[in-house]
């Protein structure tokens, strides 16, 4: 019985001791080092940083190890730590146009200023398991561009020159962006806050929703205007100083989705935007995010809200995997007080049901 009357404390201690043993596994196998996780499971680390919303590779690696590779558990560990950190201020918006780009692809133009740059991608790999990787065969050094990279304007800026895409929605003067870690969620929710929630939303959930829009549940006619991955500067304004203080660089993935739009009573025919920005390298997540962002803008363009992906409360309230996993898994906590109440009710209703059936059978016999 997992609710031993006096054994709870000891049982919990023993369970955690066993967990620590299983986490370590066979002691003859060397323990994973955090730098090994950072270097060789980099995309797992990136996902934990993005959804844990804390940009620290070493902590993310520690969380992955502590969680035995359970990503949502690792994300949860990271979040529960970040929430205790003091908030010194808000950085300036990062300038993705000035990104040190490692990968940049556009599906809308064959060639464009700055060119297409494949970067470190799984695309066009044949998904054949590589027995070589079971060992530690030497790996070639990468080929590096000799010339300095030319500037890479964002594709949406090129479209904007023709006036065919909606402008980049400037926030009104004096508008302070919301902060989902400091303010309770309120619906209807503005786009700034929605984007924050999407950016740390569960990759799998957003992927499925994005996919649903492609299959007709809230279709958005998307084209990948551009995906870029690389490093951007983070700068902070400090009141005493006349210039912004650079804090360092972070790697981000940005996706600008360009969506065809026939026009409505509210807006002329034009291209519209869906936007995705995720910490670390996560193209799948950034793309899914941009599709969800566009779908969630339905009301703005006077589109009918007919599909789950267009419904703010449905998408945003259920996108956080730390919340979702907690509430789903809480069902394993004891519920026997409520179950007792339901047991009593079902017994009563069953008795009443049997009595009614007995009574109607008697009536039927009497009638015959």
């Amino acid at each position: 019985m997992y609710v031993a009357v006096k054994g709870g404390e000891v049982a919990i201690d023993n369970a955690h001791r066993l967990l620590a043993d299983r986490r370590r596994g066979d002691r003859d196998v060397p323990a994973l080092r955090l730098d090994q996780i950072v270097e060789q499971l980099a995309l797992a680390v990136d996902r934990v940083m993005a959804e844990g919303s804390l940009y620290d590779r070493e902590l993310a690696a520690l969380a992955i190890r502590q969680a035995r590779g359970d990503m949502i558990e690792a994300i949860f560990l990271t979040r529960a730590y970040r929430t205790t950190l003091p908030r010194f201020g808000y950085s300036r918006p990062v300038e993705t146009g000035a990104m040190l780009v490692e990968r940049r692809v556009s599906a809308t133009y064959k060639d464009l200023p700055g060119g297409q740059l494949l970067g470190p991608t799984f695309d066009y790999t044949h998904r054949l398991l590589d027995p070589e990787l079971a060992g530690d065969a030497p790996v070639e050094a990468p080929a590096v561009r000799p010339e300095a990279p030319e500037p890479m304007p964002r594709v949406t800026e090129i479209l904007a020159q023709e006036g065919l895409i909606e402008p980049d929605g400037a926030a009104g003067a004096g508008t302070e962006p919301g902060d989902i870690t400091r303010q309770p969620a309120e619906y209807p929710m503005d786009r700034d806050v929605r984007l924050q929630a999407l950016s740390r939303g569960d990759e799998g959930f957003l992927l499925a929703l994005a996919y649903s829009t492609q299959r007709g549940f809230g279709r958005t006619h998307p084209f990948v205007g551009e995906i870029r991955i690389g490093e951007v500067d983070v700068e902070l304004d400090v009141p005493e100083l006349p210039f912004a203080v650079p804090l360092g660089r972070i790697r981000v993935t940005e996706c600008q989705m360009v969506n065809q739009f026939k026009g409505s009573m509210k807006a002329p025919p034009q291209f519209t935007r869906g936007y995705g920005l995720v910490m670390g390298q996560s193209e799948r997540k950034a793309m899914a995010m941009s599709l969800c962002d566009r779908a969630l803008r339905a009301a703005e363009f006077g589109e009918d809200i007919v599909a789950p992906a267009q419904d703010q409360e449905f998408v945003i309230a259920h996108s956080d995997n730390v919340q979702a996993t907690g509430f789903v898994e809480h069902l394993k906590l004891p519920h026997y007080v409520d179950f007792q109440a339901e047991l009593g009710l079902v017994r009563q209703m069953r008795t009443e049901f049997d009595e009614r059936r007995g009574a109607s059978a008697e009536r039927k016999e009497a009638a015959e």
Partner: protein
Amino acid sequence: MSDIATYNFAYLDEQTKRMIRRAILKGIAIPGYQVPFASREMPMPYGWGTGGVQVTASIIGPDDVLKVIDQGADDTTNAVSIRAFFRKVADVETTTDTARATIIQTRHRIPEHPLSEGQTLVYQVPIPEPLRFLEPRETETRKMHALEEYGLMHVKLYEDIARNGHIATTYAYPVKVEGRYVMDPSPTPKFDNPKMHMSAALQLFGAGREQRIYAIPPHTSVVSLDFEDHPFEVQRFEKPCALCGAEQVYLDEVILDDRGGRMFVCSDTDFCEKRREAGHVGELGMAVDGLEAVR
């Protein structure tokens, strides 16, 4: 990485506590109204009492005596875990004695022993919105509360009666607070609803995942919704507690074997133990230290 993780008294930083205390004060000022608050991630999962833990962490001081119960019992795993958490991060005295506690955090029950002035009961709440399963949209339910539009809830209760001859809600039974807001008492069995009415203790409700806090100040009217011809009733048990012989308390059904053998015992373990210490014995009862063998 050794510089990681020094935590403030009771885990939360003081700014967060201040924000939560403001929400609590607002809740007390408007009994039964759900106050949005910027809930934090806690080191235990959402759905496992993070709302209650945040409320407790914000009101607890070094002199408080804390009791934590889950399903009425002090020794259920999650109650043990939350009690251990506060011992660790706040170094406060903990107790299982209802009368001695200054703060009681609870999930799913209100203690049988009447609460007194100066005590605070903190409820862990999964879904704070009593109208949620009638209307899933927050934008709609907030409007309904603002307009005091509770017809939908009465229709639901009426449909229960039309279908079953009685109201088929056994826990999280909706109440009206101080004649204004319809409130979810958290998933306590409706047996406990009358204890909320005019209680001398302060009752605070925390829903972490749903980012809501609400409150019932001491000596506030809390009325379970019903109809004149179908008045509110609490559960009744046919037998008294098998261990301590208590009547008019909420009982747990304990399965004894695989041939339908079962016994009913107090869900409130502290109440049951106190009675047995005082010499009360039920039909299967025995000396206090024999309890473990029976359960």
